[in-house]
Structure formats: structure tokens, C-alpha cells
């Protein structure tokens, strides 16, 4: 009856504020935080993958 498509990953960090200012690069009229990824988690995952 219900099939899960996507659910948030467990985050290692929250509220660190290292993410970019939302309206900086892609658009200048309708900011959408959801279009971004967590930069710190992405960075840490990359490090994990390189190990």
C-alpha cells in the first residue's frame, strides 16, 4: 500500500552553519534550501569514500 521513496539520512552534524548562503549561486529570486545538500556531510562522505 505504501512504498518509501526517500527518507533523510542520519546526519552526523546539525546546525554547524558551514553550509553556503542559499541565494548565492543558482538563482536570485526564489531561494530553495531543499535544493542544496549538507556540505559537511557530503564532505565527510567523500573522505570516507577515499579511505
Amino acid at each position, binding site marked *: 500500500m505504501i512504498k518509501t521513496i526517500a*527518507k533523510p539520512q542520519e546526519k552526523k552534524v546539525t546546525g554547524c*552553519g558551514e553550509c553556503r548562503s542559499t541565494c548565492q*549561486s543558482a538563482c536570485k529570486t526564489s531561494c530553495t*534550501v531543499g535544493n542544496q545538500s549538507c556540505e559537511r556531510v557530503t564532505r565527510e562522505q567523500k573522505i570516507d569514500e577515499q579511505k
Partner: protein
Amino acid sequence: MRRFFPYIIKIMVHVFTYHDNYYLYDTGSGALHACDEKAARYFSGESVEMTDEELAEIAGLEKEGILNAPETKARPIKSDEVKALCLHVSHDCNLRCKYCFADEGAYHSVREVMSFDTAKAAIDFLLKNSGKRRVLEVDFFGGEPLMNLDVVKKTVYYAKEEGAKLGKKFLFTTTTNGLLLDDDAIKFLNEEMENVVLSLDGRKEVHDAVRKTVNGKGSFDAVIEKIKKFVRIRGDKHYYVRGTFTAKNLDFSKDVLFLADQGFDSISLEPVVTDIPELQIKEEHLPAIGKEYEKLCDEYINREAEGKGFLFFHFHIDLEGGPCLSKRVSACGAGNEYFSVVPNGDIYPCHQFAGDKEFRMGNVFEGTLDPVLREKFAQSCLFTRKKCENCFAKFICSGGCNANNYHYCGDINEPYEMTCAMMKKRIECAMHVLASRKAREK
């Protein structure tokens, strides 16, 4: 045993359909589920016959925390650190686009460019106020920033040099109309810019109707090959071809697809922000816009399935690795951690407020920021926007654009419902794109 009863919606579960597909988006957890019609009716509050197995399935998802999950208690990120500046290096432009929010580059004042002294003071201001933050952002904006390329170059080199002394790294971006993209500019931008936003509205007739040269001619032919060349040379580095649609081209899916057909694989198209009656998006346009997004979404999925996909900014949504909830409730950071600096060094909350004296926050030469205004913007977040309280999209859009809210509704905390309607439609399309991709991958 069978039971009949309506589902008691404790928390917000957004039920929506896309063609014959039914979806549940759980606002509290951010999880997306596909479901059958019966489940959709059940979660819409209809009295539906449910089996024990079906109820157990729902209970399992609830237990897992991905359905009917309680909303976050996350608080906005509070920081005194300045992390990004938009440098208006040119309050002048070599185009005269009809819908320009910046008064065709002049920002309702004299046409001028920023001196290197001012840009340098802005970088010093950013470094001084950036606290422990290691990555800083500078966006070169206008008008047309390439009209002042020499200052852009000097500023980049100065920022890198000074940043390195303090162990800080700069990410630079530039927004350009492409008219001055010669070999020298292309080389510099490709070497130094983390991201480049290139303005192009789509089909020639659409672009030329609004994006005029100083002599009143359409600018499409003057920019298209330059932008193509730039993107070709740029390789894998980030860029966006970014356009604007108006009431004159409500068939804008054709413009996005036209851009994709030109070989651009990173595209954004935004609804116009203007009060010019013949261009302004009005409420009566919303049904057509919704259908157009669906049309685009269908073709987007088709092309992706055929291996000819491209990235449309608004159809990309990261439900799995997206920002933390603290970020999602903090909005864009304008006026608190992100500011605009105009050619005379005055500081505004963002580019959309530039020139509005009521929002002047200081000057980079004085090195000060109006504490009252800053606090007002720092306080502004999802939770100060009462209209967002019962919106399923709130943790994705974080309450919309401060400037848009202010210019249309007179209050940075009052979301503009036209923008909300389009945002919600795009988010539903983005979720359908995601579901279609996952289904293909399996």
C-alpha cells in the same frame, strides 16, 4: 477484522497526485512515500475501510519515524559570523532588460562602478567579521559585473591572498549577461569562479522581447555563441544558464527545453519579479503555470530515461542528503550572515534591497552594521512566518525570500502567496522526478 474510520492527522502528511501516481510527503520527517489510491484517501481524512495488515504497515512506518513524525524543534542557526557578500561591482549594465529589478542596472541612482578601494574594504570587512568560519563566499553582481572586470580580478587576487594569511578560503561566483565574454573573461572566470550564472531566457523571440541592448535591439544573437563557448570550455565546473519567464511566455517549458537543446545541462528558469502589468505573473496565470511545470516535468523524466537528461534547478531536491533542519528553518541568511555591498560601500541585507535607504545597514569603510536591522533579519526564520505554519513545503523552502515578501506584502515575514503556489507545484514535480528516477534505478 476490518475497520472503518478516518485517519486522524496528528501531524502534517501532504497527499498529492501526479497523473496516476499518489504520494505522501511527511513534513515532520521529510520522507516521501508512494502509495495507492486507498492510502491517499485514508491520509486525506476520508473514512476508508482498512485491514489490520494495512494499519500495521502504517504503524510500522510511524514507528520508524518516517510517517506522521513529529515536527522538529530545531532552532535556526544563530551566528554573528558574516559568511557571504554580494559585491555590486557595477551599477551599470550594457543591456536594458524590461523586467530588471535593478532599474536596468542603475538601482534607481547614478550609473557607476565599484572602485577597487571599495571592493578591498568589503573583503576586509568580510574577513574581519567572519569569525571562525573558514569558507567565505563572494558573488560579483551588477548590473553587469564584467563591465568592471579589472576590479573583479584585483578583488579575487586580493581576497585569496588575504584569506590565505588567515587560513580562509573564498568561493567566488559571478552573474553575467554574457555580452562581454571574450577569451580573457572566459579564462579568468573559468579559473577563479566556483559558479557562474549566465542569463539567457530561452527561445530567441522570448529573450529578445525583454532582454534589449542599449539601442533597443534584442540581445540573443550577441550572447548565445559566447555563452555556448564559455560553457564548452568550462568543462565540469559549476554553472547555471538562468532565465526568467514572464506572463508573455507562459509556455516556458519550451524555453527550458530549448536551452537544453542548445547543449546546456544546468538550467534554472525563474518567474519574473516585476510590477510591469504586461509581464507580471498574476493569480489567473497559476493554473497555466502549474500545467507548464507538469509538461516540463514529463519531458524532463523522459529525457533522463533516454540518457539525455539535464539539471533543472527546481526539479532537483535532496530529500536524503539535504541540509540539516537548523539550516532549513534559518532561511537565506540575508541581513545577518549575507549582505550586499553597493559601489559607494553601503551595506544592504541583500541585492534586492540595494538602494532602499530604509534598509541601509552600514558602510564597509565604517565597518559597522546596524544592530537593530541585523537583529530583525537574524530573527526572521520559518517560525516567524505564521502563514507557513501549516504548509507542507516549509522545511524545503524555509519561508521564501525576505525581499520578495517585503516587496509584495510589505513585511519580510509575510510570504507572497503567488510565489508559494509556484514553489509548491515545483516541489511536487521535483518529488515525482525523484520517485521516477528511483523506480528506473530498480
